[in-house]
């Protein structure tokens, strides 16, 4: 399952990057005229809100998320930016699961025709994770990485309205009374790094029927409003 996800992620990223980099037929002839907003030195400030969900079996229902961020074009059509999001991934009764990603990203932007600005890229950062009112509340940071793509259209002078889609891969939290997950008592990777040093034998750490993926995918689809300057 994890390999399948990795394959899907790689394929999606390749398609998204190709889509952002390529100039479609209807935009032929305009590729040399990237708008000023895609020029080196341009800065974008964005706010966004929309849908967020965990992908996988027995996961919580998708709910809402929002965020804000800043991008600066370090090259024509290439931006480097930082974003913070707050995503309520789901609720079971009174229990809630929240993810707060703080990320850096590199995006490739393009222009289709005169009024569509697609983009795609990759990012990584620290994902703060919190479960509360579960009976076994927990929180903490874990590194995560993602692919993202989307597009903007101008709606006013220096104002863009867009759609942002991102798919992040992060560690899957252990099961607790409210939310499913891998058994928390299993030997984890941090344990294996030390405990496997010894000789082979019945006392070495052994994994029995422990094939459940230890990572999970977070999807989000958000409306984005950006001010350029």
């Amino acid at each position: 399952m994890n390999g399948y996800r990795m394959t899907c992620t790689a394929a999606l990223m390749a398609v998204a990057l190709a889509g952002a980099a390529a100039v479609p037929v209807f935009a032929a002839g305009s590729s040399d005229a990237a708008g000023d907003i895609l020029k080196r030195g341009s800065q974008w400030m964005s706010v966004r809100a929309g849908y967020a969900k965990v992908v996988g079996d027995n996961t919580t229902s998708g709910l809402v998320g929002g965020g804000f961020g800043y991008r600066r074009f370090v090259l024509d059509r290439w931006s480097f930016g930082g974003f913070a999001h707050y995503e309520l991934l789901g609720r079971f009764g009174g229990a809630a699961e929240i993810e707060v990603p703080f990320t850096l990203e590199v995006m490739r932007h393009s222009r289709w025709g005169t009024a569509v600005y697609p983009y795609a890229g990759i990012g990584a950062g620290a994902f703060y994770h919190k479960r509360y009112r579960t009976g076994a509340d927990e929180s903490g940071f874990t590194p995560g990485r993602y692919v993202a793509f989307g597009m903007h259209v101008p709606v006013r002078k220096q104002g863009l309205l867009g759609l942002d889609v991102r798919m992040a891969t992060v560690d899957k939290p252990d099961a607790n009374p409210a939310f499913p997950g891998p058994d928390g008592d299993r030997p984890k990777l941090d344990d294996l790094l030390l405990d496997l040093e010894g000789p082979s034998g019945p006392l070495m750490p052994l994994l029995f029927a422990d094939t459940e993926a230890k990572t999970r995918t977070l999807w989000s689809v958000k409306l984005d409003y950006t001010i350029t300057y």
Partner: protein
Amino acid sequence: MSKRWMMVVSALLLLCVAPQAVMAAAESMVTVTLGNQAPTGTFGDVADPGVMAGLSAGYRVTRWLATGVDFSYFSSRGTHNEDVVDIVEPGTGRIVTVTLAERWSVSELGLYAKAFVFERGRLAPYLRVGAGTYSIRYSQDVSAASAATTLGGVEQASKPGVSAGAGLRYRVVGGTSLGFEALLHRIYARDTVVRLWTTGVTVGFGPTGN
């Protein structure tokens, strides 16, 4: 100092005082790296040397500084791979003799910076540092067993890490270059630091005329 060392020192001095390369700033380049990786320290006790592949896309901000993003993948067998072990099957309590199949893999996504030093003509030595997220994956399976067993599983965790090293780039023609790069990666796990060396041959592609 022997004659050979005198020649080496003389060559290095020449590189220092020679006019700077004509390579301009503002070049972009995609680099593919293929090579091997060698776990060291405590990680060397649980993983064997293996292979690595990397892909990076970078931009030369100034004459001496380049920066970009990179993705790398390292893979190796575990030190217990092919070991024959008697285990107790949890469900039945029976003793089963198995041949272990172990594999470690690490994937990295991060940012890097290269500082070019003593660049001369087509030759560009550089120092490189980077930081990113590392996903470490361990899989355990059996390649042979005396009876049915449920032994097998996967563990995975993402960790922050840094890398540092040096490389050498030689511009072949146009925007194409060949080179060599060696990096030390430090990955910060909960109770230990995972360290591994990677060495590889690099092939760079960039717009002609860089």
